[in-house]
């Protein structure tokens, strides 16, 4: 196939949603007829493989012959990144392959053990309660995104990393820009440089005066057994900071909206908080906000069910499609907080790169949904659902504003 006729023969990616609560309609057709198919990336005009079934997404993400290295030719970029910038860019955990990935992940995983996550519960509860106190004091209507959704994960990740929360308006703006498909290369570059300069200063300070936080402990371990230079640590901190709040924030808003739109299921949770952990899994599955966040490039020819992905070709395993695969999740487009198999979702990815913060996210979501509807049982949308604007242009799906009242 030549570059010239790609555009006419292949569908474009990303595909458009027709309903804010459902994946693009083409996904179901692709799962049925062509679970491994090619598409053209709107941003770069280059082809990439779309992987749409639950089984195939797991197969691809579990295969050591695929790489996350975004510098390799063929990597399916979803942003305009100028060549010269790409040459200079530092790989972060998410874009590293073993053995560098293994070394860096091993420095970070003690920070995210189940024991540490459980120990964070009371502090997260305090943060959530304080934000809800402020909402109640202000009185409705409020925009839930700024009042609660962004504030909670942002406060939590700042405390974990040792980043001063008072600087949050600036790094939240950079973070939102970095998640947007539609910005210019200059805007994207400026956001990365801005955040990196901020973190560079912060990390330089921690190198001489360490605190009781993740970044300081990383610096300490790295001093004993170096795997990263100063710039690598800045890049690691950027990933943790951006990854730690943008994703959870969008899940908080969408989850609240999903429950408000399914009042009988919300009532069940209010009556029985034991349903909350299952509801969190189902909401993660249902919204699958990081649909194409697990881009890969093939390192060798890989045959899957008779289809050959050639070495050097880009691959997009789509978790929003996998998580709506009827063969694993019957009646997949229906939100059902009692769904037994919900936890089999791939919303946190799969394989060696599966989200390191997934259990922190689960705890935050459980505490937020549980506390919000217990303390404000009359919470409701302050505008008609049709007026909400969804982040169709973003790498992480969400809603821009969520006006609520009670």
């Amino acid at each position, binding site marked *: 196939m030549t570059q010239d006729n790609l555009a006419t023969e292949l569908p474009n990616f990303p595909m458009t949603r027709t309903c804010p609560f459902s994946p693009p309609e083409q996904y179901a057709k692709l799962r049925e007829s062509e679970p491994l198919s090619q598409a053209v990336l709107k941003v770069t005009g280059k082809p990439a493989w779309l992987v749409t079934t639950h089984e195939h997404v797991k197969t691809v993400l579990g295969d050591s012959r695929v790489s996350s290295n975004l510098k390799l030719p063929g990597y399916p970029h979803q942003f305009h990144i100028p060549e010269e910038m790409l040459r200079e860019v530092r790989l972060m955990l998410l874009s590293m392959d073993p053995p560098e990935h293994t070394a860096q*992940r091993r420095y970070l995983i003690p920070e995210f053990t*189940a024991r540490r996550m459980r120990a964070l519960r009371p502090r997260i509860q305090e943060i959530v309660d304080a934000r809800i106190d402020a909402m109640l004091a202000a009185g409705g209507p409020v925009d839930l995104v700024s009042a609660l959704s962004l504030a909670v994960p942002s406060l939590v990740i700042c405390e974990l990393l040792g980043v001063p929360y008072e600087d949050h308006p600036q790094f939240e703006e950079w973070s939102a820009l970095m998640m947007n498909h539609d910005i210019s290369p200059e805007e994207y570059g400026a956001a990365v440089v801005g955040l990196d300069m901020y973190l560079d200063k912060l990390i330089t300070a921690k190198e001489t005066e360490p605190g009781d936080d993740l970044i300081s402990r990383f610096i300490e371990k790295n001093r004993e057994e170096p795997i990263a230079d100063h710039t690598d640590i800045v890049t690691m901190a950027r990933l943790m900071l951006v990854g730690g709040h943008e994703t959870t924030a969008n899940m908080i808003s969408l989850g609240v909206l999903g429950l408000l739109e399914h009042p009988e299921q919300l009532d069940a949770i209010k009556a029985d908080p034991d349903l909350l952990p299952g509801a969190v899994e189902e909401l993660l599955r249902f919204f699958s906000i990081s649909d194409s966040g697990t881009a890969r490039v093939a390192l060798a020819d890989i045959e899957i069910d008779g289809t050959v992905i050639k070495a050097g070709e880009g691959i997009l395993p789509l978790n929003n499609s996998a998580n709506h695969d009827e063969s694993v999740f019957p009646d997949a487009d229906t939100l059902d907080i009692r769904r037994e198999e919900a*936890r089999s979702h791939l919303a946190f990815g799969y394989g060696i790169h*599966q989200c390191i913060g*997934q259990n922190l996210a689960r705890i935050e979501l459980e505490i937020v949904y549980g506390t919000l509807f217990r303390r404000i049982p009359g919470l409701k949308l302050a505008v008609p659902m049709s007026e909400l604007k969804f982040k169709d242009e973003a790498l992480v799906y969400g809603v821009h504003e969520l006006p609520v009242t009670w």
Partner: protein
Amino acid sequence: MRVSVDPDRCVSAGQCVMLAPDVFDQDEDGIVTLLQEEPPAELHAVVRQTASLCPVRLIQITE
């Protein structure tokens, strides 16, 4: 049921510890450790679930 794990491949997703804390734990480095090689029958279903959820399939079960 007999359970075994391959800690060398662990990526500390932690789903096994969250779901079956009586069977799996994590050491100080965050790496999976096995608390019971032969869990009682009432835990079999949840142990099977952890094996299917492990993102690097390092939990092996023989029944």
